[in-house]
C-alpha cells in the first residue's frame, strides 16, 4: 500500500518507500525475506541493472524469481521487491556496491556476481580501492559461488581468495584505475590480455568462460551465439556474466542464453522514443567507463547526438570525470550539450573541438535536431527525468 501511496503523492516510483517502512519496523526484514530462497546478488560499477535483468530472465527457467528490476538497488529496494513476490523460490538482486557487504550478511547468497569496478561518483561512493577492500571482505564470507571478471584487476583482487570462483573473461576493459596493484601498490604489467603484478602474486586467473565477438565459450568448450538485442561489447559482457551465474543456479546454458536474449529494454534504457519526427535512442551512461563504452556504440552511426549531464547527489556532484571521457570521438558530428550542467559539458566539448550548442532541456534539444535519428546519452538523473517525461512517447 505504501508504494501506491508514494506514487500517488508523487514521491517517486514507489520502489523503495515500502521497503524503507518495512526495514524500520523490522531491521532483519532482508534476512527474513531471503531465508529459504536461492539468492543471486549482482554488483559492480557498470551493467548491474542489465545483468540483473538478464540473470532473472534466465533463472525464470527454473521457477518464479523475485527481482528489483527497476534499479532500486539498496536494502529498502530489495525488501520492497522481495515482499511483492513472497512465494518466489528464487531471488536475483541488483546491489549497490556500497551496500554489498550488508546485503551479503543478510541474504547468504548462492551466487554473487561481481561485474567490474571503476571510479564512479568519487564524492559520494568514495575511491575505488576502498570499495575493493570492502567487497573483498564481504566476498570472503560468501559460502556460495562467486562469478567474477578476470579482465578487471580490481575485481580479481576482490574475488581471488573466495572459496569458489568462476572466472569470466569479459573482453571489456577500463584499466585507468588500476595501474598499480590493489594488493601491494606496485605496477601492473599487461601482455596482451594477460596481466600480472610486478611484485606480488596477483595475476589474471585462467578464465572458465570466455566472451567472443557475438558468442560465448562455456567451460566445456561449447560455443554459443549470443544474438542479443542490446548493443555494444559491454552488453555481451553482461550477458556472459549472467549466463555463467545462471549455469551455477542450475539453468542449462542454451536455455539461459535464449532467455537473456529477450531483454531489449532495461528500465527504459536503449528505448527509442518518437517525437516531432525524430526517433531518439535513449542511452544511459554514468561514469567514464560507461561513457567510453557508449561512445563506441554511438560511433557506429553518424546520427546527431544530445548529451545530457546533471550533478545531483545520485549522479555525484563532482563533474571532473567529464575530462576522462573521450568526447573527441564526436568531432564532426552535430552535438547539443544538455542537462542541468550543460555548460560544464560545453566547456569540455569546446576543448575537445566538438562543435555544439547548448539547450539545457533534453526534450527541447531533441526537437532542435534535424528530422530523423538522434542518439541521446544521459547520466543518471538526467536519464531518469527524460524517461519519465517521455513515458507515453513510445
Amino acid at each position, binding site marked *: 500500500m505504501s508504494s501506491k501511496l508514494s506514487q500517488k503523492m508523487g514521491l517517486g516510483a514507489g520502489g523503495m518507500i515500502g521497503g524503507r517502512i518495512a526495514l524500520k519496523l523490522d531491521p532483519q526484514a532482508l534476512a527474513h525475506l531471503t531465508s529459504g530462497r536461492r539468492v543471486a546478488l549482482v554488483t559492480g560499477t557498470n551493467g548491474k541493472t542489465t545483468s540483473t535483468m538478464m540473470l532473472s530472465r534466465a533463472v525464470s527457467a527454473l521457477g518464479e524469481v523475485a527481482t528489483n528490476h527497476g534499479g532500486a538497488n539498496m536494502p529498502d529496494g530489495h525488501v520492497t521487491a522481495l515482499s511483492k513476490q513472497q512465494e518466489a523460490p528464487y531471488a536475483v538482486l541488483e546491489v549497490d556496491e556500497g551496500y554489498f557487504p550488508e546485503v551479503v550478511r543478510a541474504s547468504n547468497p548462492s551466487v554473487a556476481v561481481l561485474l567490474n569496478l571503476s571510479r564512479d561518483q568519487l*564524492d559520494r561512493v568514495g575511491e575505488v580501492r576502498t570499495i575493493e577492500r570492502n567487497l573483498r571482505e564481504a566476498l570472503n564470507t560468501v559460502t556460495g559461488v562467486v562469478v567474477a571478471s578476470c579482465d578487471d584487476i580490481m575485481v580479481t583482487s576482490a574475488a581471488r581468495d573466495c572459496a569458489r570462483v568462476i572466472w569470466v573473461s569479459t573482453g571489456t576493459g577500463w584499466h*585507468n584505475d588500476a*595501474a598499480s596493484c590493489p594488493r601491494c*601498490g606496485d*605496477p601492473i604489467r599487461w601482455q596482451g590480455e594477460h596481466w600480472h603484478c610486478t611484485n606480488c602474486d596477483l595475476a589474471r586467473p585462467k578464465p572458465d568462460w570466455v566472451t567472443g565477438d557475438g558468442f560465448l565459450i562455456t567451460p566445456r568448450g561449447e560455443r554459443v551465439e549470443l544474438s542479443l538485442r542490446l548493443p555494444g561489447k559491454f552488453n555481451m559482457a553482461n550477458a556472459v556474466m549472467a549466463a555463467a551465474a545462471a549455469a551455477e543456479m542450475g539453468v542449462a546454458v542454451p536455455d539461459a542464453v535464449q532467455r537473456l536474449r529477450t531483454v531489449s529494454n532495461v528500465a527504459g534504457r536503449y528505448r527509442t522514443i518518437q517525437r516531432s519526427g525524430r526517433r531518439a535512442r535513449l542511452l544511459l551512461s554514468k561514469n567514464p567507463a560507461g561513457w567510453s563504452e557508449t561512445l563506441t556504440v554511438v560511433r557506429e552511426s553518424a546520427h546527431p547526438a544530445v548529451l545530457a549531464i546533471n550533478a545531483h547527489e545520485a549522479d555525484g556532484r*563532482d563533474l571532473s*570525470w567529464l575530462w576522462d571521457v573521450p568526447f573527441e570521438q564526436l568531432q564532426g558530428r552535430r552535438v547539443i550539450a544538455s542537462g542541468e550542467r550543460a*555548460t560544464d559539458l560545453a566547456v*569540455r566539448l569546446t576543448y575537445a573541438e566538438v562543435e555544439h550548442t547548448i539547450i539545457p532541456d533534453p526534450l527541447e534539444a531533441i526537437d532542435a535536431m534535424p528530422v530523423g535519428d538522434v542518439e541521446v546519452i544521459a547520466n543518471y538523473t538526467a536519464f531518469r527525468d527524460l524517461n519519465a517525461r517521455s513515458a507515453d512517447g513510445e
Partner: protein
Amino acid sequence: MASKVQIALVLPDLLGTYGDFGNAVVLEKRMTWRGIPAEIVPVRFGEPVPDSCDIYVVGGGEDTAQTLAVRHLRDHPGMQRAASRGAVILGVCAGIQIFGEKFTRADDVTHPGLGLVDSSSHAGGSRAIGEVVAEPVDGLFEGLLTGFENHQGRTVIGPSARPLARVKVGTGNDGSVEGLVQGRILCTYLHGPVLPRNPQIADLLIEWATGTKPQPLDLEAVTRLRQERAKAAGV
C-alpha cells in the same frame, strides 16, 4: 625551448583520478589556438621523467598511488631538475602534498615529499568535499578561483611559499587559504579540471613558460560556466 612547448603530463596512470588530463589539454589548446605550437608528453609509470619539458602537470591520486608516484619521481628526478632551472609546474590535489617537505597520510604514516616547495601536509579530521571559491592573493591573477575539492589533507605553508588565494567558500589548505605559489610552481587543492574553470591561471602558466603574456582568448562556454558556478556557490 624546443620548437614546441612541451607539457609533461606526469604519471597520468597513477595521478589521474580526477580528470587531471583536462589541465594538460587546456594548456595545449590555449597555446595552439593562439599559434603557439604545443604538445602533451605523457610520462607513464615505469618511464623516466624527462627534464627538458617546459610545463609539468601533476594530478590527484589515492593514497597508495600517491606513495608509488613519489617513489617513482624520486627514482627519476627529471621534474626536480627541471624545477631547479625554472620550469613551470602545476600540482593539483595530491600534487600539493607530494611537492612539500613531508606529508602524513590518513593511516598516520609520514612520508618525505619531494621538497620542491616549503609546505607540509597532514590528514584533516574530516574530508573536504564540495565547491570552492577563493580570492587571489597579491593580484597574482584576475577573477575568482573556482573549482571542486575532495581531499582529506590539510597543508601548512612555510615562509618561502605564499598562498595562491583566500578561501571564501570551501576548505582549501586549512579553511582560510587555498593553494600555494613558490617561484614558478603553482599548487591547488581544486582538483582535476581546475584550468578549464580558471583560464586566467592557465594563461599565467603559459606566460611563465613562454615569457610572453598570451593574447586574450574568450571562450563563451568558459565565461558562462564561471558565472554559473560562482552563483551556485552563493558568491
